[in-house]
């Protein structure tokens, strides 16, 4: 019996060292440690051992079983660890799962930039209706009824039996609403959608978006307006842009100006975009006309102020080098995904 134990011990220890795979481990377990394995068979033979030898042999067998089991367990763990190390080798060259990527519209991105610049110098943001009454869209902005200035903006009229309503032709009526409801000083920009009754083409659409600005306070001057617009233009177009203020006419400002920036495409030498003039028209502005103060109940001797207005589409066209305004409203994702 002792000889058998020694033999099993030697044999099992040798085959334990041979275990490489989990199959080997399972075979080992079946052969030596299972209920019908070699070790169990030896325990079976214990009953035939003479009574006085039983304790000593039993102890030997138990020691052998404990030793084999513990050694087997550590070998099995090693094999398993190796196996999982092998199996966790994944192909990292497979690309990630592709998900939807969202974007803001280029008009929104442009408006955001304009807002950021003006908010940084203390402008608030105001808002107003797109369907306007004649009073706010024209009359209070010093467009008298039957005045040729009304021809400057082709107007959509809204069907109504109760009054004269239009789709606002500019964001300027919100100037009136802001001043009607707030005592000076006021300093706001007003982004929003406006409408013009013009045939749709690459250069014009039936609607577009403007950002209006208004600053009324004591002693606001044309010089201040120029400074503000210059600050904006340098922030928006880059610090080396040159500006040109030309006298112009808007009924609600006096004096009025159109502002051109030097063409950043040709550097002022003249190209197709600037119609060979070297200048790009970007916005209109001026000092708030005293007649407007009368309509909103401000005292023209107490306050002065400026207003300006720019087209977001116009600025976006220039900013991105787009040549057809209709692209903004078609929402071709091949277009939108470029910004």
């Amino acid at each position, binding site marked *: 019996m002792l000889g058998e134990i020694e033999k099993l011990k030697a044999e099992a220890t040798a085959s334990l060292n041979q275990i490489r795979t989990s199959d080997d481990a399972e075979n080992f377990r079946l052969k030596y440690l299972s209920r019908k394995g070699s070790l169990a068979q030896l325990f079976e033979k214990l009953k035939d051992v003479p009574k006085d030898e039983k304790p000593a042999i039993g102890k030997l067998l138990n020691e052998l079983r404990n030793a084999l089991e513990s050694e087997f367990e550590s070998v099995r763990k090693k094999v398993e660890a190796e196996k999982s190390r092998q199996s966790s080798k994944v192909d990292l060259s497979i690309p990630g799962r592709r998900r*939807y990527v969202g974007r803001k*519209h280029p008009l929104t991105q442009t408006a955001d930039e304009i807002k950021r610049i003006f908010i940084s110098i203390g*402008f608030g943001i105001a808002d107003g*209706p797109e369907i306007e009454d004649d009073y706010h869209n024209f009359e209070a902005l010093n467009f008298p009824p039957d005045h040729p200035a009304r021809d400057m903006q082709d107007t959509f009229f809204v069907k109504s039996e109760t009054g004269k309503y239009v789709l606002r032709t500019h964001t300027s009526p919100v100037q009136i609403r802001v001043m009607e409801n707030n005592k000076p000083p006021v300093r706001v920009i007003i982004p929003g959608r406006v409408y013009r009754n013009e045939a749709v083409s690459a250069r014009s659409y039936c609607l577009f978006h403007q950002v209006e600005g208004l600053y009324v306070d004591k002693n606001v001057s044309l010089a201040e307006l120029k400074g503000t617009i210059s600050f904006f233009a340098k922030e928006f177009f880059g610090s080396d842009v040159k500006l040109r203020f030309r006298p112009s006419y808007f009924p609600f400002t006096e004096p009025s100006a159109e502002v051109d920036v030097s063409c950043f495409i040709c550097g002022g030498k003249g190209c197709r975009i600037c119609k060979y003039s070297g200048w790009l028209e970007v916005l209109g502005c001026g000092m708030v006309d005293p007649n407007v103060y009368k309509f909103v109940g401000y005292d023209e001797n107490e306050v002065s102020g400026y207003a300006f207005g720019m087209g977001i589409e116009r600025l976006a066209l220039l900013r991105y080098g787009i040549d057809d305004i209709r692209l903004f409203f078609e929402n071709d994702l091949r277009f*939108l995904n470029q910004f």
Partner: protein
Amino acid sequence: MKISRNWLEQFVDLTGISDQDIASRLTMLGIEIESFENFSEKYKGFVVGSVLEAEKHPKADKLRLCKVDIGGEIKSIICGAPNVAVGQRVPVGLIGALVPHDQHDPEGKPFKLTRAKIRGVESEGMICSAYELDLGDDKDGIMVFEAAAPLGKSLAEYLELNDTILEVSLTPNRADCLSHLGIAREISSAFSKKLAIKKQSLSESGDSITGIAKVEVIAPDLCPRYSARVIKGIKVGTSPQWLKNAVEKVGMRSINNVVDATNYVMLELGQPLHAFDLSLIKGKKIIVRRPLNSETKFTTLDGKERTIGPDMLMICDKEKIVAIAGVMGGMNSEINSETADVLIESANFSPSSIRKTSKTLGLSTEASYRFERGVDPNLTLAALDRVTQIITETAGGKIANGVIDAAAKKFAPQKIELRVEQVNRLLGTRLAAGEIKRQLDSIEIRCEKKSETVLTCSVPTFRGDIEREVDLIEEVARVYGYEKIEDSLQTKLAFDTRFNETDATDELKDFLAGAGFTEIVTNSLQLTNVASFHTDNFVTIANPISEDMAAMRTSLLPGALQTIKLNLSHGLKNMKLFEIGRKYLLSDKSQTVGNFSERNTISLSITGSADPLSYDRKESEFDIFDLKSEIERLLRHLKLDNWDFISYDNDKEYKQSLKLFVNGIEVGIAGRVSEMALENFSIEQSVYFAEIDLSEIASTKKKINRYQPLPKFPFASIDLAFIVNLDTPVGSLMKSLKSIAGNLFRDISVFDIYFGEGIPEGKKSVAFSVVLGSDERTLNDGDIARFIDNAESKLGKEFSAVLRKQKS
């Protein structure tokens, strides 16, 4: 408006000043020059030629082989015009010349003449039509000049086109610049040149005008001044070449020597004029009045019958209307080939009256355009003398002695006080009184010092736009130069906090872009049928550009579907889109403006695959729960927790339709777009769309959330599964569980829905994970067992639900 440089030279010496200089300086004075064209340049390489021979081309019936003498040199030219004939004097383009229009090009693009062989025969130039030369619309044949046209002379010189034409874009306030004189006046100021206005000296040789014609102004409110002269014994005929050239090159049509003369003086001085055939004026009396009730129709000289209104001003004789004042004359008194005696009207009319009339009639003329902007009332006599002189020079006749001048009053220069301090305050300058005076003086505004700090300015009557001190300040700035005013930026860095209540729009756009949605911006004008598809309370445009933009949008759905349609056509199938914009409805309550309600609205559209281009996941199409998931994500982001989706019947726009309520208020809809709606856009794949009223949910967003102490005791998560009937709404089970949990409720989610094998026919198993917690203590087994017992019995009663298994 077109302005001729040569014409300007009559008033101001332009020697040494380039076209570009004129354009730049005027533009910087607020007189925008859009473009200018030099005709000597344009017609370089075109000369007058004489056709010596015109034989048939051997290989083409319609072509002729011509020999053309261009002054000492004979050119062989092939010509296809039917009217070419031997002996004609014609315009000839030589090799290298740039022909302004190609007759065979649909857009009429210019082209350069090159040596060309036409059917085997070489052509050394081209005989041109008026269209090809940009001198008219005639494409049918070549231009033929008078027989005396000098051979070899350059075309520009022969047509007196050795000139530059400036295209001026005028703002409506500068009526004084609607003439060559007006523009010359600006140039004289810009270049400090003297303005020379020649005085006319007429030789009046006829009878006294008072015995020949009379004028009575019955409506002086609409006609402040009416001046007239009479010329007898004229001969109406074609205009001499100089007159014809002058009016044509600034874009007017030549009619005859009398009408051309009136147009010429209008273009020169800015005063619209009208010539009547005196023999057709009954009673030889002009009466300026409003129409009688019986007078409702009048035929203008363009042959159209016009319906006239009671407030329109009419020029009449003793019996009838002869002209619509300031707009257009009538057929019944028109100058014709028989006309011998003419009465010339030089009048001033009320701008707003002329504008109303012109708008009502839908008739805008060169005259009405000027009158509605305002014409100098002191111009009538000068213009009358000028036109009288030209007519007698070109059509003969004797000038009746004297002039009729019916004026309501004297038109004296307006006096306006100008405070030096106010100039500097508004402009941000430090100009001295003397400097200001000098600026204004250069544009004929005379200033006197009233005191050390106040100037009294006298504004000439041709500047009707200057009425107030601020108008003078603008003139000072304009002449001084905006570019000389130094920039200043003192704006204090104080944010105007009254205006920082922006809604959630900006922030939501960032959130949605981050959630994989692409922003779209669509037209808010729609086809009426599209607007009415969603509601009857839509806003209609009275004067739409076209029928497909005759109404305001009532939903953002059509814009989204239009976008999906376009992108599907490019082969793109999977999209997540959002838009934030207004919809416009008629409300039964009064709104900020009228009864128009503008709702700022957010739209979400998803279509195609939920997981596009994934290599190891099945491509699963979006469904309604993806849409709900996006909406719920948005609501959670806005920290709104009290929301509810209620399904409702809508077979029109949506197939699976839900209404969204937040805090009990209906704020939007969501659903799978109906086939009917998709068909209109020929879309063949499912689209899920939601529209949420942003003004409703954004108003609840403004609050700043106060910090809540973190829970002191751990939460318990309990998983429960129930067997219920297939049609039992999961949402109702969740609501019940929530109420059973009472104030221990913390959260609930669904983690499994299953039916089929192992579950009885007609039943489903729904598994929930419920989170319970308490602020006072750790929950014990008893609490949890009590909740499970309650859930089992209540759901059993309410929904015949059977608790399936439990683990905690």
